[in-house]
């Protein structure tokens, strides 16, 4: 039964990630990434990483992708802008690079699939276990991420100030 769910969500993840790069409308790109994130989160639950799976849905599908949608709608891209963006000179190069990556990943993981050496361990990423490690062994990196988010806020505010000041210059 877990194998069935694995293949279901794996196919969903691959199809959604293909839709992310192939769909023409940016709105559909973002919505396909929402589907991909939900499939990925389901795979995390299959791997018994419950806390990370929930955080993935909350942060990605809840915050990051809504932010993406907000920007896509805020830019209000018209058809002329979108069609001018579609043609790429690097399509062949991209295909070759993708095939190289995929084949190298396949060659690297072939032995893993054949061997089945490691069975799954009893690791269960519940809130209790993850929280205990996060606030003991990983306390310093956890506090440093708050500093990182603060710096990101400073960066965005300074970028937005540039927009406001240029707007004022135009107004004057």
């Amino acid at each position, binding site marked *: 039964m877990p194998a069935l769910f694995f293949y279901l969500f794996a196919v969903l993840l691959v199809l959604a990630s293909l839709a*992310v790069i192939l769909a023409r409308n940016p709105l559909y790109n973002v919505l396909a990434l929402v589907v991909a994130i939900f499939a990925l989160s389901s795979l995390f639950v299959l791997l018994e990483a419950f806390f990370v799976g929930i955080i993935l849905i909350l942060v990605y599908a809840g915050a990051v992708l809504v932010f993406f949608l907000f920007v896509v709608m805020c830019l209000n891209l018209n058809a002329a802008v979108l069609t001018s963006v579609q043609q790429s000179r690097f399509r062949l190069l991209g295909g070759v690079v*993708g095939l190289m990556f995929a084949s190298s990943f396949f060659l*690297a*993981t072939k032995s893993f699939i054949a061997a089945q050496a490691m069975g799954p361990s009893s690791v269960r990423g519940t809130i209790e276990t993850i929280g205990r490690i996060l606030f003991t062994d990983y306390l310093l990196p956890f506090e440093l991420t708050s500093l990182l988010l603060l710096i990101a806020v400073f960066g965005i505010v300074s*970028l937005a100030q540039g927009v406001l000041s240029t707007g004022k210059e135009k107004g004057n």
Partner: protein
Amino acid sequence: MIGLGHYLLLSGIVFSVGIVGVVTSRNVLKVLLSLELLLAASNLVFVAFSKFNGDYAGQLIVFFVILVAAAEVAIGLAIIVLMYRRLATIQADELKEMKW
């Protein structure tokens, strides 16, 4: 029986799709979305190794990756909005001021 190799192969496929998206698309929004795919693929590897090696560190790294990705997306989208206001385009090739 689903083993570690299945998860690694799936993550490799998603990573390759993301690489193709980063290389081929000229729409900067799409480049940013493809970067998210790359991060998602690497997150899957971390969680799979965490499960099969019996170590919680992989899941904690995924937690930190999600935090850093949120900050990265916020800054990236701010830059895209600025770019659209200044140049009225979201095409990566139009950014010529840093070229020489």
